[in-house]
């Protein structure tokens, strides 16, 4: 084969690969589930404190937030109105959209609402967040572009059920959801201080939130129309475009995780405490990060242990992006990184930060492990179903309904 022919084949293969399917369907599902779960857990945990963190009882009040946002033009639906009722609505919507994104119900719409919830709350009070919030902030935007509901979702189950139908259904629920979100957006645009602009103050230079949100809304309608009335080429092209966007966003997610570890590792190499092998000793003795002092004392009792963990942290973080070239090395690193973050969750009292990082790491989980988990959960569901068949009477009605595992794993 001549080099030019080989190049041609490679290009054609790459073309086929990025357009023919949304790659990493299970990985993107795990990322979706991981981040929506983390944010949902956080919102529920902060329920008693919600009005202090983001609402009318906050030391960072609405006027102060308005002054800051006037300068940086960040997006927050909470700034559309200063009423306490509106705050409660937004907080409730953030909870509901996280839960529905978690189970994969109307994933496309929920991913957008999830993003709106994350940005609205975090940008309202940027000084109560930490690195975990920052990661959720970024990923909530990337998730909008990924087809993260292809597996392990209610959407996937519904699609499988109507697989034998020749014609896509009218989908009344989808139409209602589309009309409701459109009406809400129109209300925000016309009757609030939303300042949704076509070209200014958006997520990226030259791209306003009005363009983004109305654009997503129109694409939703276009997709429905194409599926129903234009099968064949328009349908194929739309599918390919969605795959291209998904694969691009997935690439960005993976690159961001690499960047996270690379930058964390490279900066650490320059620090004297990471060089002398005592760095991990110090955070364990900060009052804000030591929920279990006795645990920290046990760990800090061995200088060798602290030194090994300190060096190990830097080595793993710096090495991680390069280990992607080798599957086994990558998997070993992934296990180490996840274990380290489980440790951080407990030792430093940073559970939400750690969950967010683990959710991001999950994009690199090997497919065979995910398939294995899928099979196990599927078997567990089948066993549950079988047991319910054997227990007639009261239980019979329940068995008609899907178990939680069954809704997520087909």
């Amino acid at each position, binding site marked *: 084969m001549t080099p030019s022919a080989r190049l041609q084949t490679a290009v054609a293969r790459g073309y086929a690969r990025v357009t023919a399917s949304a790659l990493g369907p299970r990985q993107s599902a795990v990322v979706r589930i991981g981040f929506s779960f983390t944010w949902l857990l956080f919102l529920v945990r902060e329920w008693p404190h919600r009005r202090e963190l983001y609402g009318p009882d906050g030391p960072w009040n609405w006027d102060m937030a308005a002054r800051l946002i006037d300068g940086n033009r960040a997006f927050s639906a909470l700034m559309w109105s200063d009423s306490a009722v509106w705050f409660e609505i937004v907080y409730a919507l953030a909870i509901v959209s996280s839960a529905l994104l978690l189970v994969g119900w109307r994933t496309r719409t929920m991913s957008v609402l999830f993003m709106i919830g994350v940005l609205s709350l975090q940008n309202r009070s940027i000084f109560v967040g930490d690195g975990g919030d920052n990661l959720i902030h970024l990923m909530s935007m990337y998730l909008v572009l990924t087809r993260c509901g292809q597996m392990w979702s209610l959407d996937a189950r519904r699609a499988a059920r109507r697989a034998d139908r020749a014609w896509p259904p009218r989908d009344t629920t989808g139409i209602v959801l589309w009309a409701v979100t459109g009406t809400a957006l129109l209300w925000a645009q016309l009757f609030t201080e939303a300042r949704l602009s076509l070209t200014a103050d958006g997520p990226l230079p030259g791209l306003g939130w009005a363009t983004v949100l109305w654009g997503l809304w129109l694409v939703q309608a276009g997709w429905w129309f194409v599926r129903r009335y234009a099968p064949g080429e328009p349908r194929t092209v739309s599918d390919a475009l969605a795959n291209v966007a998904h694969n691009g966003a997935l690439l*960005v997610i993976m690159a961001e995780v690499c960047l996270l570890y690379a930058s964390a590792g490279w900066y650490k190499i320059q620090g004297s405490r990471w060089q002398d092998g005592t760095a991990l000793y110090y955070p364990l003795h900060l009052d804000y990060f030591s929920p279990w002092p006795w645990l920290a004392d046990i760990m800090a009792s061995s200088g060798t242990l602290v030194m090994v963990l300190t060096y190990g942290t830097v080595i793993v973080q710096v090495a991680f992006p390069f280990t992607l070239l080798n599957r086994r090395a990558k998997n070993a690193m992934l296990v180490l990184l996840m274990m380290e973050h489980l440790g951080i969750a407990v030792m430093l009292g940073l559970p939400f930060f750690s969950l967010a990082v683990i959710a991001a790491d999950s994009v690199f989980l090997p497919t065979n492990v995910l398939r294995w988990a899928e099979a196990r959960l599927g078997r567990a569901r089948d066993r549950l179903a079988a047991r319910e068949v054997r227990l007639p009477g009261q239980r019979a009605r329940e068995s008609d309904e899907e178990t939680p595992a069954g809704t997520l794993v087909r």
Partner: protein
Amino acid sequence: MADTEPEPAEREPTGPEPHDGEPTDLEPTDPESTESKPRGSEPAESAPDGDAVEPLSTLSLPAQLIIAVAIAVAAVAAAIHLSAAFLNVSPPNTLTKRHGAAIDDYVYPEFERVWKLFAPNPLQQNIAVQARAEIRTSDGGTATTGWRDLSAQDGAAIHHNPLPSHTQQNELRRAWEFYVGSHDVRERPQGMRGNLSEQYIRRIVMLRLGREEDGGTVERIQVRSATTPVAPPPWSDEKIDTKTVYRTLPWWTVTSDDLPEAKRR
């Protein structure tokens, strides 16, 4: 920057798309396709729902062109986005000096990254924020309360708490970072952020002290930080001074704007 292109990602809200696993004859069996890397993972299981998806190679020229342009746009967008992300976390360098404004314009406000976790060095000192109040007593006199360690209250709330709240772990701690970052050594506020940070600190203090303190009405408050270096580990022969150093701010008069429960609307 795949984000500039919201359109193709949107799809009907009803679940996965069907597609054929081997869409073209151009893709031979790839030994890596069952590999674990997400990029190399197998395509989603087909969920055929009746729509026939044509192999891409049989598409008309305009359709092929649209897809080709979309791929180019996505590739360029991702490249720009990741370059900006890289330059956002990198130390100041030739490129950031030349294009700093453009990078900031791109990254802020939604794509900022605050990731220098425990780097280059972890924090090695406990910084406690403390406050005291000047109160007007019922008999008309004034008195000054003792210092209250608000960070110690946070620490007590975090102690044995598997799920610390952001109100305990971040609120005061980050407010103080905000204050320090927006004031010079003579406690003069730098711009709007400086003024906002002062008001923020006052409101946090008043939220925690309350309007009434030690049987009087709080009229003025004073805030200080107490910085205590963490002692070196027992196995280290390093000697450092672990004496607490104070940074004391001037007295602030409390106004109704500083009372969190004051609802002026």
